Structures are given as C-alpha cells and as structure tokens.
C-alpha cells in the first residue's frame, strides 16, 4: 500500500471508535477538530450529538455510560473546548464513570508557542483523568485509542483523554486493530484472594450484628454483581444499606434494605452502621459523606472491605479484611464460601439485631406531613413520592437523573430503585448542572424509556442551554424542578450552621420556566399547589416531547435526617416530625464542608 492510500488520522480515529463499538459521540466542533468533523460527515455508523456546551457533552456521555455500562465518548475542540470539559472529567473521575474524551490540539509544531486556542490540555487534565495521552505521531493514534478504551473500562473505570494535534488528524498512517495482547503495565486484579474470602465469611458467620454496605462499584461491575449481592444478602439474612451511588443494586422495596446511609441517610441505616459488629463494604469507599466523623465511625465493628481499587482500601478507614477484586466475583465467591463453610450462623443474635433495626425503622425518619387541603403548599418529598408512584403505575422503564442539592437527597430518599443503572447522580463531585445533560445521554441510549431529571431551580440553570439539544434530537426528557426559590441545600446549612444568615442563597430573578420550556420548543407545566401535582406529573409523562415541570414547593423545607459535618452516625438530627431529638454541631464540624 502506498502512503497515499493510507487513511488520514481522522479516518483512523473513526475506525478505531467503530472497532470499539462506539455508536454515539457527544461533541462540539472547532478549528482543531475540523478534520474529525469532516470524517464524521462522510460516514453513517457513528452518530454525533451536538451539545450546547462541552461540560454537557461529558455529563451526557456519563449518563449514557452509567445507564448502559458502555464507555461514553466525547469530542471537543482545543483550548476552550477542552477547558470547558474539565468539570465533566473530574465528575467522571470521582464517580468512576468510563468516558473517553477526544480533544483537538494545535498542530505539533505549534505546541508550546501559545498558539491560538492552545491549552496545555494534558497538563490541565492530568489530575482530572484516570489517564491521558498526547498523540505525537500518527502511527500511535490507533493504538492509543484502543488503549484508552481499555483503560477507561477496566479496573476502576474512569475518564481517559486523548489530545489530538491537528496535523496528526490529517496525516495518513497505517491502521492498527486493537491488540489481543494484555496491556504492558495496567492489569488490575479482578479475582479475589480465596483466603481473604474465607476470612470474611468466618467473620460474617460469627457476627451478631452484621451489615452489608454496598456502593457504586456494584453498579459499575454490571448486573451480575447486583444479582450476586441480592443472592448473598438473602442467603445470609443480613441487613443491607447503600451509598448514594449504589442505589438500585439492591431493590429498595425489599424488607432487608435499610435505605441509603450517610449524611442524609435513614435513621435505621446509620444506626445499624454505628452499632454493627461486622461490616461488609462492597464497592464503596468510606467517603466522608458516609462515615461522618471518622474517629467515631462504627467504632465497635470488624470491617471487611472489597474493592477493585486497592487504593480505596485503608484510605479513610483501617480495615480488618481487605479484599481486592471485581464486585461480582467477590460476591459470588462470598456466597459460595458461605455455603461451603460449615460454621453455623448465629441466627438468634441476628433476629435480635433485626428487632433493634425494626425499632429504629419504626422512627420513620423520612416522614413528612403533606397538608392535603385545597391549594396547600407541595412538600418536595411528596412531589418525589408521587413522581415515583405515578411512574411506577405506568409500568414504563424509568431512569432518574438529578442535579445537586436538597432535591437530589430527597430523590435518593423517596424515589425507590429496584434495578441497577436507573439512577444517575453526581455523587463524588456534586456537580450542579449534571442532571439535564446526563438525562440527555440516558435518553439517547434508551429512546423509549421515561427519563426524568429531578432538578432544583438553581442547578438547572447551569446547563439549561441543553434544552436546545433536547429539541434538536427530539429527546423527550422531563425536567422535574423542585422549585423552592432557594439554593435549598445552601439555605439549609445557613439555617442550621450560620445563624439563619441567608447570604446569597435566594434564587432571585428566576426565569419563568414554563415560558423557558416553550422558548426551547418544549412544553412547560407548573404546579403551584397540591391539587395540581398529580395532574402535572401525569401530563408530563404523557407528553412525548421535552417538558419542564415547574413544581413550586415549600421554600423552607429542610432535608432530614442529617448528620451534621463532624458528627457521628448516632448523632443524627431528625426532622420537625421528631422534635424530641436534638442537634449537636461542634466547632470542628463548622470547618468541614
């Protein structure tokens, strides 16, 4: 083959993407990536979704990835295109979402010259990615793309960035298919150590007050992990709680499920974590939102921690039995070892433990009171409950994304998930503006499903421009705004920790969301009182177009239970429904975020 017949860099790139099974790219063009856009124009197998801001491209890819288990792909131009993508990359890094981000770069001979739209993209994103590459030679391009996909999805998944100088995209080079050879240095272990599995089972069998605490790693591992988790929890009869990122792995309507744990977790989940004697953490990372004050975290328990990333183990909490492995393999191995081990489980103690848990459960810590009189103000919790109940009645496959704030926590508490990959939220980074573009990515992957972004009036404005993308691609995403006219979560902290000085947390000069939806070729609905709520939800679901439902909710509602920063699990504040219990916020807690 002569040099002239070789494909261009841009063609090589697309071919490598196709070989990796890519069907959709979320992107935004610019000078440095024009050769790629030219190649995209001349083919039909990969669909390009034109977003309205590069941050949204990454969140859309995250939503796509999280709801399908595939790698999400992003394409942006050099300089501002790349820097706009950074928030999304860090979001994906924190939540372990597999994303490959392709960025344009100035031609290699201009790198380092402060050329137009040049940014040191690999430098800027080094701490924002699992791995990044600057392709300096055309021959390396195909191999780099294949490697990037492998890195993004293997081990603990994460974002990988490839910076592509324009001359590399133009120059012809030979194509290289993906190699079957193992990666030269990156080979994460997935198979758990049988000795550690045995040790874990021995601890769990001897436990009097056991608990399983599962996280996002179970979702990332795939359906088999969720199935194995459910099988294990059922076989052992132990209680199970979940992190924000893990919701859906264990069916939340199951009696063995205690609800979410952590800062806004249920009374029973947090107290059970505090009081357990053996804890099995599967695919979670003892995040500070989960542990509360670290030196008061579950003080009397022996801890088993299984994670695919060895660096997650012993990072925040020292553990007794560390297990490195893939969540599915670990849970399957634990179940097999449970049956193989002939020690008897202390069923009597377990029954006592359940009696204690049921007493905590009876506190009904998520309780709220919805006034049902005509025109009564809608409680945000109730809006979520009704959204859940009505979507369930329809029997439609439903995916929920969220923004960040009180509405996110209420969604986690009151929407019930019984399958994995149906819940996408920005957990680690807590990125306002995540939900709408993520919903877009979910809807692309699941065109017939019902996709709802549970949103706050402040967060939704951070990527509101994506309403145009929804319109362009006829994506019937529903934006369900719990409009409390406050940055509610900020207001709540100011109320509880800063003497009610509501500094800059009022959502002033809000747009008219109904008109806004119409301006973006969608449908706007509004519920101002309890009598409107069900009708608006039903209408929203029935409309086969993008909808913004502006749900005007109680402005002063706080999200409870709450473990204040610096407090322990058993020092939870409960809501006004439970006046008998009081707050305790230390000075130290004031310094924490």
């Amino acid at each position, binding site marked *: 083959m002569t040099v002239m017949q070789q494909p261009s860099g841009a063609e090589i790139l697309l071919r490598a993407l196709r070989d990796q099974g890519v069907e959709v790219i979320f992107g935004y063009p610019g000078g440095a990536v024009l050769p790629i856009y030219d190649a995209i124009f001349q083919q039909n197998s990969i669909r390009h979704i034109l977003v309205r801001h590069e941050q949204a491209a990454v969140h859309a890819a995250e939503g796509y990835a999280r709801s399908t288990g595939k790698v999400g792909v992003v394409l942006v131009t050099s300089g501002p295109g790349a820097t706009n993508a950074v928030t999304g990359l860090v979001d994906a890094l924190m939540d372990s979402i597999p994303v490959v981000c392709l960025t344009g770069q100035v031609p290699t001979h201009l790198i380092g010259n402060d050329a137009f739209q040049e940014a040191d993209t690999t430098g800027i994103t080094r701490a924002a990615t699992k791995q990044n590459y600057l392709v300096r030679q055309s021959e390396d391009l195909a191999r780099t793309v294949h490697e990037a996909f492998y890195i993004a999805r293997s081990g603990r998944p994460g974002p990988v960035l490839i910076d592509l100088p324009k001359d590399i995209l133009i120059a012809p080079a030979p194509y290289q298919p993906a190699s079957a050879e193992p990666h030269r240095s990156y080979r994460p272990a997935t198979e758990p150590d049988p000795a550690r599995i045995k040790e874990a089972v021995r601890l769990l069998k001897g436990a009097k007050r056991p608990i399983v605490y599962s996280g996002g790693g179970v979702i990332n591992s795939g359906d088999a992990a969720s199935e194995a988790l459910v099988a294990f929890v059922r076989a052992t009869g132990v209680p199970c709680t979940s992190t924000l990122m893990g919701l859906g792995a264990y069916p939340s309507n199951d009696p063995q499920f205690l609800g979410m744990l952590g800062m806004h977790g249920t009374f029973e989940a947090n107290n059970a974590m505090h009081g357990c004697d053996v804890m099995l953490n599967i695919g979670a990372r003892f995040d500070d939102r989960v542990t509360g004050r670290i030196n008061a975290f579950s003080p009397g328990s022996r801890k088993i921690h299984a994670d695919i990333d060895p660096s997650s*183990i012993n990072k925040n909490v020292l553990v*007794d039995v*560390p297990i490195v492995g893939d969540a599915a393999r670990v849970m399957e191995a634990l179940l097999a070892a449970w049956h193989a081990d002939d020690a008897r489980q202390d069923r009597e103690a377990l029954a006592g433990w359940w009696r204690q848990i049921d007493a905590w459960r009876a506190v009904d810590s998520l309780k709220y009171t919805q006034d049902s009189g005509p025109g009564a103000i809608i409680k945000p919790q109730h809006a979520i409950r009704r959204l859940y109940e009505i979507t369930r009645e329809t029997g439609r496959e439903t995916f929920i994304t969220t923004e960040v704030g009180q509405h996110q926590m209420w969604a986690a508490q009151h929407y019930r998930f019984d399958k994995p990959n149906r819940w996408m939220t920005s957990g680690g980074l807590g990125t306002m503006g995540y939900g709408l573009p993520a919903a877009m990515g979910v809807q692309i992957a699941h065109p017939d499903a019902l996709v709802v972004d549970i949103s706050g009036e402040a967060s939704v404005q951070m990527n509101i421009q994506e309403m145009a993308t929804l319109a362009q691609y006829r994506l019937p995403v529903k934006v369900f705004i719990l409009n409390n006219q406050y940055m509610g979560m900020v207001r709540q902290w100011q109320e509880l920790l800063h003497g009610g000085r509501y500094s800059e947390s009022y959502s002033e000069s809000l747009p008219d969301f109904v008109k806004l939806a119409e301006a973006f070729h969608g449908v706007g609905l509004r519920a101002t009182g309890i009598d409107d709520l069900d009708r608006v939800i039903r209408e929203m679901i029935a409309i086969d177009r993008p909808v913004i439902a502006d749900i005007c909710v109680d402005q002063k509602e706080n999200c409870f239970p709450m473990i204040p920063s610096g407090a322990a699990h058993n020092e939870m504040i409960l809501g006004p429904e439970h006046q008998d219990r009081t707050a305790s916020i230390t000075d130290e807690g004031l310094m924490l975020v």
Partner: protein
Amino acid sequence: MPKDIPHPAAPPTFSGKEAAALPHRSATISVLVDNESGVLARVIGLFAGRGYNIDSLTVASVDAGGSRSRINIVTSGTDMVIEQIKAQLARLVPVYRIAELSQEGPHLARELAMVKVISDGANRAEALRLAEAFRARVIDATVESFVFELTGGTQKLDSFIELLRPIGLAEVSRTGVAAIARGTRMLSASPH
C-alpha cells in the same frame, strides 16, 4: 536465581489498629514506569495533590531501549499513609511495578553530593581533612575554593555538609536517593 519483589497487590490488614496511634516512619519506594512524557508529572502531581511528603525523588531511564524509567522516592508518613502512597502509585496506568525497599528486606540507598567550600587558611585545611575522613573526592579546586564529591547514605552526606557549614560551606548540589535491593531480589518488569 533472581527473584521478583512482589507487587503490593494485596493491601495489608490493619486489624485492631487505630489510625491515630500508628507511628510515623520513613519509606524508600522504587517505581518502574513507562518512560513516556507526563509520567513523572503524574507521580509528582499525586504527591502534591494528596499532600504526601517527598523527601527525595530521583528518576532515570534504566533499560537498554530507554523505554522504562525507575523513580526512587523517599517519603514519610504513618503506615496507613505509606500503604496509601504505594497503592496510589501502583494504580497509575504507566506504572509496571513498585516496591517499598525499606520493607522488602535489606537494601542499599545512596546519593551523591557535590559540595562547594570557599575558605582560606586553617578552614581550608580543615575542610580538606574532613573530606579525607569522609572519603570525599576533590573534583575541583581553586586557590579559594574546593568542590568535593561524596557518595553515600543520606545521613553520611548530611553530617559531612553540617561539618563544613562553619568552615566555608558555600553551595550544595545533591542527586537525591537511588536505591536497590540487596542480593538477588529485583524490581523487574516481567509480568506477574
């Protein structure tokens, strides 16, 4: 027979230990990495970003083709922090293998210092005497200055430099620590 130092794939158990009660210690860690751009930045960024100490860091390519480099890091922290540093290093994509030489058995650690002394009279003579005692070599001399070259462990270099301080120590340039296991054990890149 050469033996590979095991890759720390299995995290240690801290059964029954309190994080706050763990003692502080020093650690010498060797890391075998791909010799590609950005690897050193990633390693340094890791230490900076997570607030770990770097007491010394050296890097050089170590194989015939120049495709692999060895980074030697001297750091300090509690056991929990050092285990965390090792795990964080081990999971970097371009890292082949890491070993904490200070834990894996006996090891050698050396650095080289070039030390400039500007002095005259008795101080100049004393500097020369000290250099002899430490087996430092004179690699440059003028009528008012010497440059000594000294190789050895960090403490040896430290004491030599301290002794020269009052008698005309002018400038110091040190390489940082290079380290290697004693005996047949090695930090190899062969797949495990």
